[in-house]
């Protein structure tokens, strides 16, 4: 409990059991430390942490709307620059995948292009979980959500994930990384590294959602790790536009191991062709990012 009390993300919030986002958010703010101001988009994290008159946040924290955390954070950063104290304060904007890749992408692109000294964190639980699991631009191929249901004519979500890290890199920002709540120390390292760099940073953290993905709450870490170990969620880092680090896989696990425990993929488990299409996505990632090659 001593650690729980020391954290800047206090217990007592109303996240579901096994919520990957709650764990990742605590890792992020505790790594950033008390000299941090956070702008939060609307979404699960905002709702379960800030119900008036209570709050989990031990740092200055602001929520405005669904799509504008990047712009609000830009205003905070500008104000701190005006006050001459920007160098002493971290500014973090954070949101879910819908608030980042869909409705918030314009504001985020503007923030990237303007080069504000801000770390933007996307907690990627791969659908609009706050409204009950509707598909987003980061919902994976063939996942069953309430607006991409499987049926006689459909295998679920028809599109692959929007390549947000590459879109971030294309903006020419100095640091882009993916991370997974299954690897907490890696999350901490990346947040620390990002905050040591001046300019605009983007970290996308894979966070399982037991309700939306329909897995047992106790499996959050295992499933997060399996996404990485199968090659479906490569952990990568770009600095100044160059791919500088990937998390290598000593042994690649078949995608079934990741898909099996999740209700959102139940409809394809008896269809080898459908599973094969997901295996192809993993295989392409492994090749593209050289996940099997050990560095010299």
């Amino acid at each position, binding site marked *: 409990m001593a650690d729980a009390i020391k954290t800047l993300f206090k217990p007592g919030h109303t996240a579901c059991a096994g919520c990957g986002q709650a764990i990742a958010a605590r890792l992020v703010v505790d790594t950033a430390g008390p000299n941090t101001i956070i702008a939060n988009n609307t979404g699960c994290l905002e709702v379960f942490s800030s119900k008036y008159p209570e709050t989990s946040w031990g740092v200055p924290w602001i929520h*405005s709307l669904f799509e504008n955390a990047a712009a609000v954070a830009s205003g*905070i950063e500008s*104000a701190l620059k005006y006050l001459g104290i920007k160098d002493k304060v971290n500014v973090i904007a954070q949101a879910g995948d819908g608030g980042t890749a869909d409705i918030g992408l314009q504001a985020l692109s503007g923030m990237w292009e303007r080069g504000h000294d801000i770390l933007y964190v996307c907690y990627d639980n791969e659908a609009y979980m706050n409204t009950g699991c509707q598909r987003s631009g980061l919902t994976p191929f063939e996942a069953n959500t309430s607006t991409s249901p499987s049926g006689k004519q459909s295998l679920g979500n028809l599109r692959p994930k929007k390549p947000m890290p590459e879109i971030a890199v294309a903006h020419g920002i100095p640091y882009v990384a993916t991370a997974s709540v299954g690897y907490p120390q890696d999350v901490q390292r990346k947040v620390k590294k990002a905050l040591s760099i001046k300019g605009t940073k983007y970290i996308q953290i894979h966070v399982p959602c037991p309700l939306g993905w329909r897995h047992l709450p106790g499996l959050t870490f295992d499933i997060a790790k399996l996404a990485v170990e199968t090659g479906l969620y490569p952990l990568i880092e770009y600095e100044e536009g160059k791919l500088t680090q990937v998390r290598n896989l000593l042994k690649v696990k078949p995608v079934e191991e990741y898909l099996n425990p999740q209700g959102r993929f139940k409809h394809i488990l008896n269809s080898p062709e459908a599973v094969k299409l997901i295996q192809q996505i993993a295989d392409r990632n492994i090749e593209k990012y050289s996940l099997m090659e050990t560095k010299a």
Partner: protein
Amino acid sequence: MRQFIEGSKAVALAVKLCKPGVISAYPITPQTHIVEELAQLVADAELKAEFVNVESEHSAASLVLGSTACGVRSFTATSSQGFLLMLEVLFNIAGMRLPLVMTCANRSVSAPLNIWNDQQDSMTARDSGWIQLFAENNQEVVDLHLQAYKIAEDKDVLLPVMVCMDGFILTHGAEVVDIPEQTLVDKFLPPFNLINKLDINNPKTLGAFADPDYYMEARFAMQVANDNALKVIPRVAGEFSKVFGRDSGGLFEGYRIEDAEQVIVSLGSLVGTIKEAVDELRREGKKAGVLKLITYRPFPASAIYQALKNVPEIAVVEKAVSLGLSGPLYADLKSSFSCSAKRTNKISGFVIGLGGRDVTKDSIKEIFDLLSKEEKACRFIGLKQG
């Protein structure tokens, strides 16, 4: 110092005098000259501020929301479609009780696409909790901006203020304007000191969500703040008059209404034309007058009622329409007479000048003539025949 300048430049110089630390900018006609002038002032180091070019009006409003939340005085400006794109954020800024000031260079809204002046854009925010001040001329534009920050930042108000000025007619019109000395403005407007702000030494949560146990009280508090503003706005106008030696601002201005038998109630630059028509009618022996509404929100219903209760014929003339009803100001004014059970005043509504349609003295006189006819909520004036 008295200068012959464009209205947009007058806004920029007034804003500069208020010493904002953050300005967000996105171009839209007819607002653009305002942020262009501010950009130049920053570029020339005449104004020390962070000037941020954003990618949309939604972000323009969101950015100054964030900077105001840090306790830094901020500014932005917009018009028309940009205003509508901002609307979600505008409601949010008011609800978060952030005392931002922005300029709305009033313009029509699409469709059909039209870049010219009417006041349909800012009218869409009348339920947002923003205080809305309307300027008749560019001197008033300057004076209202100086007063706007003082009203917004008053501890009994803490609501954002928009200064509405007619697009092109004021933004692009040049006239002689007195730009006050910085020392006088500093005497009038104290530094911004926001109590509930984002500060690492005193961490607070802003923008918490409220369930049915709390939401209604938060909205009620905004209504109370609006009521408070009805007292603060005239007080600030009085302080302004003491420091700068001229009367400006307040809730409304009556022009020849004391003994008037016919009064037009209107907003913005239209009032200048109406005043001239009133003068001509007075010379003809007709007892005409005009009530210039400066503060549209909060709506000074009882003060207006007191000023007009004995006027037999009243016209509301406005450049906006709440489609399916009447002009919005007409509905507001009519409701302020609802306290009078035996109302004998005839109150008619007129929509005029939409999308930049020219408003002449003759069309104003036509309205005065129509006042003796049956009371009607919504007549369009100046439509083409046939």
